[in-house]
């Protein structure tokens, strides 16, 4: 019997290393966008905590590692890495295939992102576990800090090739610079 094959949004574009930075395609498995109805966020947060161990995150914050809850806009959280339980007080949208996710590791990751996003990525401001919905080049997306030199960047799945193009271009530029300014 014929079976459909699953493909990564990045196809064969990743992984790649440019200069000091490595770009890796991340498949986080199940991802659910949780949108509590009016007045239900506390109940939804409690339900998430009891079933998955992570609460509904505060704005610009993530909670947990896997599963992880990521603030995803006004009244929205993305639950990553686990099946989302039935939540009476929230709308739940399957987003497992909606995003192209790249992990950036390496010395120049901040320098690369500084060329693509206007947000303040200084370690004192944008700490490990912080997240932001923002611009990445011309794209809207999401940036999360995973470590001092590690970030996760998400854009719409259809823009995967553009994300790789943009990251590759700025990484090449930085690698070619005599001195890194970032």
């Amino acid at each position, binding site marked *: 019997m014929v079976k459909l094959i*699953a*493909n990564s949004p990045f196809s064969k574009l990743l992984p790649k290393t440019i200069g000091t930075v490595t770009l890796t395609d991340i498949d986080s498995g199940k991802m659910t966008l949780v949108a509590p*109805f009016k007045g239900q966020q506390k109940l939804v947060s409690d339900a998430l905590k009891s079933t998955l161990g992570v609460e509904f995150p505060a704005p610009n914050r993530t909670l947990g590692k896997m599963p992880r809850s990521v603030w995803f806009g006004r009244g929205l959280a993305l639950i990553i890495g686990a099946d989302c339980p039935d939540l009476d007080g929230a709308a739940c*949208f399957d987003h497992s295939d*909606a995003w192209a996710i790249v992990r950036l590791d390496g010395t120049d990751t901040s320098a690369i992102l500084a060329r693509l996003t206007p947000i303040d990525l200084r370690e004192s401001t944008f700490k490990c576990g912080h997240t932001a919905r923002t611009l990445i080049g011309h794209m809207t997306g999401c940036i999360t800090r995973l470590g001092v030199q590690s970030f996760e960047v998400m854009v719409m799945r259809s823009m995967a090739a553009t994300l790789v193009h943009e990251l590759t271009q700025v990484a090449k530029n930085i690698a070619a610079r005599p001195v890194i300014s970032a």
Partner: protein
Amino acid sequence: MRIAGRGFNRCAPLVTFTFDGQSYTGRAGDTLAAALLANDVRHVARSFKYHRPRGMLTAGSEEPNALVTVGYGAAQDPNIRATTLEIYDGLTARSQNAWPSLKHDAMAVNDLLSPFLSAGFYYKTFMWPKSFWEKLYEPIIRHAAGLGALSGETNQDTYEKAFAHCDVLIIGAGPAGIMAALTVARAGADVILADEGMAGGGRLLSETYDVNGRPCEKWAADQLTTLSNMENVRIMTRTTVTGAYDQGTFAALENIVLGNPEAPKECFWRIASQRSILCAGALERPIAFPNNDRPGIMLASAVRAYLNRWGVAPGQTVTIFANNDDAHRTALDLIDAGVTVAGVIDSRAGALALGDYPMFAGGQVIATKGRLGLSTITVLDCNGTHDIQTDCLAMSGGWNPTVHLTCHMNARPTWSEDILSFVPIDGAIPKMLVAGAARGVFSTLGCLAEGIAVANNTLRELGLIESQIDIPTAENSTYHIEPLWQVDGKGRKWLDFQNDVHVKDIVLAVQENFRTVEHMKRYTTQGMATDQGKNSNVVALAVLADATGCGIPETGTTTFRPPYVPVAIAAMGAGSQGHGFAPERHTTSHKATLDRGAPMMEARLWYRPSYFPKPGETTWLETCNREVAMVRNHVGICDVSTLGKIDIQGPDAGAFLDFIYCNTFSTLRENRVRYGLMLREDGHVMDDGTTARLGLNNYIMTTTTVAAGQVMTHLEWVSQALRPDLLVRFASVTEQWAQFAVAGPKSRDLLNSVLDTTIDDENWPFMSCGSIDVAGVQGRLFRISFSGEHAYEIAVPSRFGASLFRLLTAQAEAMDGGLYGMEALNVLRIEKGFITHGEIHGRVTANDIGFGRMVNQKKDCIGNAMSQRLGLLDINREQLVGLKPVEKTGRLTAGAHLFIEGEAAVSENDQGYVTSVCYSPTFGHDLALAFLKDGLKRHGNRVLLVDHLRDVQTWCEVCHPVFLDQKGELSRG
């Protein structure tokens, strides 16, 4: 010439470069100007208008004369200041605005004609005949005058743009900037110290005095090393802050050291800071004396810079002409270096020599000689006139604080009688303080002390503890200056060297009643072009004030606008060439589509196939006709993932949709689909599409591809602002699902070959939907049709999209079907009379498109009330109709207008317009959708289609917009 043992880069390795084809050697760390002067090349440019020989005037970014073009072909970069361009091995620079050579420039004849070419001459001279201006006069003038030129080829160089953030941005790393940075950094604030030079230090790199007992350039290097070792400090050299904008945002341009062709040339920074401190220093200004523009005449501070920093004497016998003490340093440094100083001409009667050099107190330079390089000056003092042989004249008319950035948000500087210049006003830029020479404090000690003081003020504003830092010891001389703007004498006294503006031009502007400073600027071009009059503006204002009889403070300044130095558009638009121009949205079938040779078309950011050519097909129309017939007779596959898909959930989802759509959705049964039309608040149609009810509280809305974002924004607006009472949430799931149309009489057969459970007409009637399993994957199936055929749309999670696309394609091809693209899709929908945004273009109502009855008057919805306005119900409004050519071969064109027989085809007689056109292989002739006045009642009438642009006139029959299967029997199977 190079002075042995002098220059801060005296031990640097040698670098080879070319200028005007001649090979030269310089030292790493030299600017092109320094390296050329070291090789005794003084004449480097021709002036803008009169093509006068020019040399370097300055040693910094304010340079008006020494502009060169770097590189060749596509990479050619014009108007680069030789005074800031660092040399590197392989640099090829050449002079500009000269033909056939810099030395023998044919257009130098302009200089002889200068009496006829005064300011504004072309406004008066080239008036007649009118048509000659554009065709003859302007091209000639543009050819004769000008700076460097681009190649006209696409530049392949790489540029960058980037963002940076800090607590305190310090602009300028001279003595004030260094102390400010140390003070702020030691308090723990995040600091960015930006400086336009290749190394920080500012004037300290060009002087010879001590700071804290150390040679000043060494002291600066020590402090910068200390700063660079602090984690909270970022030093950005070669970075010029070019503009001050709202909310603490600054633009800056970083020049990246050249040499690696892979590296970007420039980086355009946007720096966001909580506070900023401007320590931009000051710029020396020239004196307007006769023929003060010869190569070899430069600013006194520039002579010191070339001598002390790069070990280059710009001449063998140097003279100095000044109205202040500061310029005397130049004489002392030159003597110390063993260079002959032939005299210091100081316009102040009581001026005293500070060393052993001939002094002409109360003297002025009244004439100069030397066409391609200064040879002689004539000095007038109380003893009469004296000719002095000199190949370099260092002049100083005083110093102007660099106030530019403080004026970028519309503040004007104020006049200071103490320093005879403009100084910034407090609060000119919110949260910016100014320190040092930029505020008119000219002693080194004063600058160091101010840097600390202003930094501590900044720390207080930030709520941080002040730093206790000792002020280093340094020179603390008083700045003595007396006014000297222009010198009487025969010959032109140049003000704006770049634009060839001299004193008489200003006087002429006043005579012509261009008396205000802004009018004078436009009349004379004073202060325009790449240097923006950094050296010349204040002197020109003084001359203007003199000519009008007003004081300088009353005369005021022109408007200072960003950027402070020229910024390449390529830097501001970095990364936006080619694929970087806009994001590309690819469907999951993108690669398979390209593999089949389908040309792509853009729909917003999505890339969709136009058609899928087969071997032997030579035109798009041939392929399109085949694909249409294939769908009508067999089965076709089309990727429709690009349509917006919005998942709507909640107990009030139905009520929400009733409010959004003009028709009703709360009554829709589960597993059923309904066509919906939504209006804008003004009653016009916004978008259309199908919405399926997947569950009791769950709908999935489909939008058009182009309006997906607009509709999503609209839903957010309605939910947040108009109906916050409803328990409903929604999210875009466009990217989650890959969706494919399966259309044609064999569509169900095809699906049954891939679905895990077969479907039939009874369980899956037209406009039904539900879950299915396809090749082991759970998906969704919608029985909907945009072609008029028996059709479905099947959706699977996107990771399976490419795989399902291949499977569907293979199955279709086995059934004499295959893929179809946007061209065929368009023909299919026109034949069926389905609208797109070609029809619902923003100016039509539901009535106009024949859907007036969908606006349910039993409920409220967005746009309902406004759609009932009399103007929108007028019977004379244009209504959607179909058009067929009366003659089968008649050509219909989109955008054409419609007229009645016998009436002229002019806009007054316009009856309507054509929105969509296709050649229909099904009917064998063109079809069109159009809007026609009172169109519903005119079916069967004849109208004349007139396309003035394409020169087409075709008689058409007005008909129902649904050409094919008006009863919908095909789609119902």
